[in-house]
């Protein structure tokens, strides 16, 4: 059966090649039947890759221990859920997963777009198929998921597999990789449309309108994936952190930052016809950073806490990136005329300029993260010494960047297009600005001495105030006109322009996350070796060890500390941090005890047992819950953005050629 799978991948490879040839030839030679066959080829590729994936999943579920992939990533005792997840748990399978998502996206694009974009589609098909060919090359010829175990050329099998690391047996860790992959792969589609419109010199920004929802959904997947990984680190690893600038984390952040810049700067193109070259560069950068991220996590060029085996696929990625980037740069340079800007910047205090700075800052942060991540490799190349930069360096750079971005989040949306008058500045920023100063003064008077936290919380207040004012003003206008309540008016307002008000909600989610991050300098830690009856203190909490127990199941041994928690003499109940030791994997895991409140988390980790004593790590993490609340708000806001606006919008634009269209101006 594994032969059928491998054969399906080979066929998919050939048919993808055919799809490229047929679409390009069909488009250039004006032969609609040939293009149509190219589109059908994409569907055939989806069928073939699905067959291969189905076979791999079937082998994983039934535990076919002849297959190398099955034997090294599952064992018989594993729950079905994790057996299925083993599909993306290893190198070979995850690459197949990549191909499969790409082919699915390709099929969706063909099925939904073929009627609409006659001129673009052949090129889109060709570009997506080229990417597909790269991944199929890896799947079919380099790291096939269908390898079998053999001894002296005789296929053999093993009694049981190696299983999945118990640390990874956690729900967030199961859906975290698919989320990230859906994000990584998804940017291929807007990229393909952008390049297709460049190649065919399609007029206007149709590629942006066509792929706007696609980009937002992909961006959402990527962001959710990143935050799931972060949540997993916080809840499972037992050190209480959620981000440590590890290369793999950075690899997932890079395309997300570039995509965020893209989502903002396309507005400039849609409304003003500016930054056309820049948007092409951004979407290409996003896509190549996705490939680069996959490369980082798969090639082992940078050591990280995530284990990567040294693998032969690195050079394929480098080759693909080099060819892809060279082709894109050439294409953009060749078509510069067609990307002429239709308007000019007019004032430093304008919406245009805030977008410009937003882009500059996002790109700078992207570059900083890239630089820091690659520093070991670069320093080895240029100074023969391999030097790594730690989290201190990243924070030193990224915290000011983040705060500046937060500031722009507040002011940007309220600046008028072209230029902003003093009158409007005063109207929009007077009260939020005063409020911010009051918050800062109050925090300082209250004894807070961390400048970054004070600034951050002040800015958070500022941005929240501007957002609330926007919602309030808009809904009061509706409320006065139609006499409905303020809340229904607010919903009506959002529905009228989902893009704008959904965007505000996304901003609000980010602000809440900043509130959570601001709590970081106030973390408190205590480590104690305790026996039954001992007490330990962390922050204002008192932990009394009521009992230390231990036991064993068929899978693991466990140690639990039963702690009576009290604060200022008031009992808060019992917490039970546990440590497990999995027998087969010979690996310990922490079952952290958490008391989550909106103001702070009490976080207790049973770190180790030494003799009859337990080593406990207790932490107090102020405000950390707001990070997760912010993520939920951000996801909600993104969904609002995806709902079609009730009022269709068209923007008055100055065209380069001909006379300006006289669309009725729509005041937002």
């Amino acid at each position, binding site marked *: 059966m594994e032969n059928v799978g491998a054969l399906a991948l080979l066929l998919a490879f050939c048919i993808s090649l055919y799809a490229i040839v047929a679409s390009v030839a069909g488009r250039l030679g004006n032969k609609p039947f040939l293009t149509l066959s190219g589109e059908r080829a994409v569907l055939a590729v989806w069928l073939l890759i699905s067959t291969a994936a189905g076979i791999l999943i079937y082998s994983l579920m039934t535990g076919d221990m002849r297959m190398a992939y099955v034997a090294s990533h599952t064992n018989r005792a594993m729950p079905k859920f994790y057996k299925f997840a083993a599909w993306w748990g290893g190198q070979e399978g995850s690459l197949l997963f990549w191909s499969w998502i790409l082919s699915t996206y390709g099929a969706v694009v063909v099925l939904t777009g073929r009627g609409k974009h006659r001129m673009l589609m052949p090129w889109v098909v060709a570009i997506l198929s080229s990417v597909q060919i790269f991944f199929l090359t890896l799947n079919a010829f380099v790291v096939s998921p269908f390898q079998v175990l053999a001894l*002296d050329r005789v296929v053999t099998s093993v009694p049981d597999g190696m299983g999945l690391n118990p640390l990874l047996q956690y729900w967030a860790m199961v859906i975290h990789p698919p989320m990230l992959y859906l994000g990584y792969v998804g940017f291929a589609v807007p990229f393909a449309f952008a390049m297709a419109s460049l190649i065919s010199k399609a007029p206007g920004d149709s590629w942006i309108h066509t792929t706007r929802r696609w980009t937002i959904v992909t961006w959402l997947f990527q962001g959710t994936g990143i935050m799931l990984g972060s949540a997993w680190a916080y809840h499972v690893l037992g*050190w209480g952190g959620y981000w440590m600038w590890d290369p793999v984390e950075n690899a997932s952040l890079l395309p997300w930052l570039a995509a965020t810049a893209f989502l903002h700067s396309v507005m400039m193109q849609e409304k003003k016809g500016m930054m056309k070259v820049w948007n092409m560069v951004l979407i290409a950068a996003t896509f190549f950073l996705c490939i680069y991220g996959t490369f980082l996590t798969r090639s082992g060029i940078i050591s990280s806490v995530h*284990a990567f*085996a040294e693998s032969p696929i690195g050079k394929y990625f480098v080759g693909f990136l080099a060819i892809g980037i060279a082709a894109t740069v050439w294409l953009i340079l060749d078509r510069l005329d067609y990307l002429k800007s239709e308007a000019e910047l007019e004032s430093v205090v304008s919406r245009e300029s805030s977008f410009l700075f937003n882009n500059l800052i996002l790109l700078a942060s992207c570059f900083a993260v890239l630089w820091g991540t690659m520093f070991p490799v670069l320093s080895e190349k240029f100074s023969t010494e391999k030097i790594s930069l730690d989290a201190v360096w990243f924070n030193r*750079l990224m915290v000011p960047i983040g705060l500046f971005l937060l500031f722009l989040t507040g002011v940007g949306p309220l600046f008028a297009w072209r230029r902003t008058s003093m009158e409007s500045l005063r109207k929009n920023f007077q009260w939020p600005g005063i409020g911010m100063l009051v918050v800062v003064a109050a925090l300082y008077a209250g004894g807070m001495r961390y400048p970054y936290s004070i600034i951050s919380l002040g800015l958070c207040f500022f941005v929240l105030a501007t957002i609330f004012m926007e919602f309030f003003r808009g809904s009061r206008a509706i409320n006065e006109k139609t006499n409905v309540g303020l809340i229904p008016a607010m919903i009506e307002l959002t529905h009228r322009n989902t893009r704008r008000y959904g965007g505000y909600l996304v901003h609000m989610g980010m602000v809440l996350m900043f509130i959570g991050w601001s709590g970081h300098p106030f973390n408190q830690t205590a480590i104690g070796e305790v026996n039954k009856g001992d007490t330990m203190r962390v922050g204002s909490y008192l932990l009394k060890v009521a009992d230390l127990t231990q036991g064993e199941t068929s899978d693991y041994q466990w140690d639990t500390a039963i702690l009576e928690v009290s604060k200022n003499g008031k009992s808060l109940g019992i917490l039970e941090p546990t440590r497990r030791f999995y027998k087969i994997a010979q690996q310990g895991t922490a079952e952290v005890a958490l008391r989550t409140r909106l103001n702070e988390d009490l976080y207790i980790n049973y*770190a180790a047992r030494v003799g009859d004593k337990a080593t406990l790590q207790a932490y107090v993490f102020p405000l950390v819950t707001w990070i997760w609340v912010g993520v939920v708000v951000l996801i909600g806001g993104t969904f609002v953005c995806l709902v079609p606006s009730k009022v269709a919008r068209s923007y008055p634009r100055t065209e380069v050629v001909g006379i300006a269209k006289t669309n009725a101006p729509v005041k937002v």
Partner: protein
Amino acid sequence: MNKYGKFAILMAIIVGSLSFLAYSGIQGSTSYYKTIPELRKMGNSAQSRHIRVSGNVQGDSIVREAGLVKFNLVEEKETLRVAYEGRDPLPDTFRDGAQALADGRLGPDNVFHATEIQAKCASKYAPKPGMAPDQLQPGAKPAVMTSPMRSSL
């Protein structure tokens, strides 16, 4: 001043201050990746630097004492004695045979005093060569992985 001048100045300020932060930050937060043989070759200069050294934890070498964990790291047949003096308990992935990354300084006693240990989290992107589990090595000959296309030839 024209508007492009203003933009240019603002951007220069932003980019300049970020570059300054990036450059000045490098001093305090670098650590040098060294292999154990390289560390040996460095001699006394090794003691003045923050170093990151990786290797495999030698089997049965982990000794836990009060506030201290001692073990040996092995790489390319060279052994390095490591004393872990950090505050945090060791990660779950740290055990005999694991791949570990130790951050710290080499002491005059030739013991590497680590303040931080990372053990590679075995998310099993692929089994390391030579680290295949016992089941995969029936008999004396190591199992060879071949692709089905090749084995069916």
